């Protein structure tokens, strides 16, 4: 047993970190000036958009761990590209459905797809039932994926992001959101691959949750790092504020919560391809429950350590909070996860 990245995964972490730093949103002003296309291009060139594309034997080219490594790096940099939406959630759905060529198109970076979520963002949209919902993390995408009930399972469909979708200003300033308010016209849908079984959907959800958790962990860890640096530099009463035990404890508590979330996320990411789908999903829900439970508190503590300046729009702290709070909702917050974990543990469902 070794709960650590191996040498290759470490290298990947460095590569992803470099790309993320080049595209980092270090202050909210960067949201306007970052070259998002260039960031996407570097991810494609490094092969990071294709981690879930399958080989001839149907094996993904990299495991959930690699996906989490990249997601954490991009979360840490608050990078405004649809990595989770397109390269993880959509690509994996296509790959599992056996829609190889479509998955590869996304991996090449030329084309992007978002994911359609239901109205409370807690699950992929099921059509025609979900008459309202959102295309999430769909920056630059012309379509989003949804599920349609079909004989043999859930059929993945491609939904054109046309006039039925209205871009909305959500909490998260780094990822886009478009709303639909009326039943989606079924004639516009295109099927992709074959229907997914329950087990395949569970596998998908496990990866999606693990990747979301990794993003949250990145957002939290980098926020804590920034707050700790600030506490070392900011002078009040003639000393760095980090020398006050009250500030030390705020830093320490935020750090503990973020590290606990990272531990649970590491296991969830590993479990995706190794454990049985049900077990993998429980591991993912465990991580999501932990991430969801601490995301708000950690990012709020960071704002508090920054004092007044951490309350302003021009400061980066709230961009962390907004992204973490959105991650918390997508595919279910901690309450939703806990209820599902309770189902498994207590009722054996």
């Amino acid at each position, binding site marked *: 047993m070794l709960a650590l990245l191996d040498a290759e995964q470490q290298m990947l972490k460095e590569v992803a970190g470099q790309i993320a730093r080049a595209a980092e949103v270090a202050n909210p002003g960067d949201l306007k000036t970052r070259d998002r296309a260039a960031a996407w291009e570097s991810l494609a060139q490094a092969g990071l958009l294709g981690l879930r594309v399958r080989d001839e034997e149907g094996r993904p080219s990299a495991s959930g761990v690699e996906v989490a490594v990249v997601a954490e790096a991009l979360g840490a940099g608050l990078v405004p590209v649809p990595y989770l939406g397109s390269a993880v959630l959509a690509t994996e759905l296509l790959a599992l459905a056996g829609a190889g060529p479509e998955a590869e198109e996304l991996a090449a970076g030329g084309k992007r797809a978002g994911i359609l979520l239901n109205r409370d963002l807690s699950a992929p949209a099921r059509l025609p039932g979900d008459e309202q919902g959102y295309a999430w993390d769909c920056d630059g995408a012309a379509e989003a994926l949804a599920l349609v009930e079909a004989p043999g399972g859930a059929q993945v469909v491609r939904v054109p992001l046309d006039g039925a979708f209205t871009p909305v200003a959500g*909490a998260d300033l780094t990822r886009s959101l478009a*709303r639909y308010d009326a039943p989606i016209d079924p004639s516009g849908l295109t099927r992709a691959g074959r229907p997914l079984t329950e087990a395949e959907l569970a596998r998908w959800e496990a990866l999606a949750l693990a990747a979301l958790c990794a993003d949250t962990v990145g957002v939290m860890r980098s926020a804590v790092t920034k707050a700790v640096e600030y506490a070392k530099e900011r002078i*009040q009463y003639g000393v760095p504020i980090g020398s006050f035990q009250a500030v030390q404890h705020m830093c320490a508590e935020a750090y503990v919560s973020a590290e606990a979330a990272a531990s649970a996320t590491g296991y969830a990411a590993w479990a995706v391809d190794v454990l049985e789908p049900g077990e993998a999903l429980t591991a993912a829900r465990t991580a999501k429950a932990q991430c969801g439970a601490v995301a*708000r508190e950690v990012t709020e503590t960071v704002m*508090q350590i920054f*004092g*007044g300046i951490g309350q302003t729009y021009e400061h980066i*702290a*709230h961009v962390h909070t907004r992204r973490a709070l959105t991650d918390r909702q997508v595919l279910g917050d901690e309450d939703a996860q806990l209820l599902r974990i309770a189902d498994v543990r207590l009722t054996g469902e």
Partner: protein
Amino acid sequence: MDYRDTPEEAEFRASLRAWLAENIPAGWDKIEDRDEAARMQRAWHRTLYEAGYIGMSWPKEYGGRSLSPMYEAILNEEAGNLNAPRLPSVGYIGRAVFTYGSEEQKKRFLPPLLSGEAQWCQGFSEPEAGSDLASLRTLARLDGDHYVVNGQKMWTSGGQYADWCLLLARTDPDVPKHKGISAFLVSMREPGVTVRPIVLASGEAETCEVFWDDVRIPVAQRLGAPGEGWRIAMTTVAYERGPADIGFIASYRHTLRRVERLAAERGLLERPETRKKLAAAYVRGEVLRLNCMEQLSLRVSGREPGPEGSVAKLLWADAEQSLQHLAMDILGADCMTGAAGEWLGSYFTSRPVSVYGGSAQIQKNIIARMLGLPR
């Protein structure tokens, strides 16, 4: 001990209620434009003033009614119950002026403060002097019968709408830092004053940076003696801290009602956890209200506000922030998707409550000192 109104208070409360029902400006809470909201706020101040509801606890000779502060508490309560616009906070500036001002200053500054003709802001904090306010660097150099002020203030709330500022500046750099500060009553229209609004995470610009470049202030507009600025600041902050003074309790109850409605609309009222959380929010509000009543009663019996104000400030920040957490949790994704975007705004607005007027950490330091813990 008797938590009920005295007969006089009850009578006052009844007539106030009737007055409020007639006079609350219709549709005030639908105004979105900030400048328009500021105009509404001024007009509301004027209306309250003309009816005699501003500065009720001030001495008669300065335009008040020499009533007990209980009457102001009743005003706050009823205004909140009937969803009136925010009540103007003249208390802390007024307190500073009539405690430390010369007779001439009181005559000049107090009436327009009361009537709302003159809006005030508080220029204390600076980029490098937040919690450690006494380290402020803005300099006021004596030049004949004027002071010349240079420096930068930060977090001057309402600075963009204010006519006057209660300004702290260093008049003597050579003495220990608490002793070299003086307070000034300065017009915001003076040449050399530049105001730049600061947008907060909520997207609202409620506070400002203010740059002071060679601003000339007549010596007659210094408040108190040279070097008395620190004491004046501490008096002001002590009065500013009380949630009772700013009508927080009433607006808290109002928000709680809205949150309860949200839960009902979403069909969550049957869930025991939601019921418990809503009830806990009510309890937090009551605890805060009762703590404030106790503080107020002490004040009525002649006690100056002291470190116990820190207790209320901590309870206040916790109540407000927990209530916004609850609203966010009831709304779930709607808070993040813009479907209920206004609540995301109020959530972010609740965050600095544990920062301004002395951060939560500073309040705990004050309480620890009051408890006599070794330093």
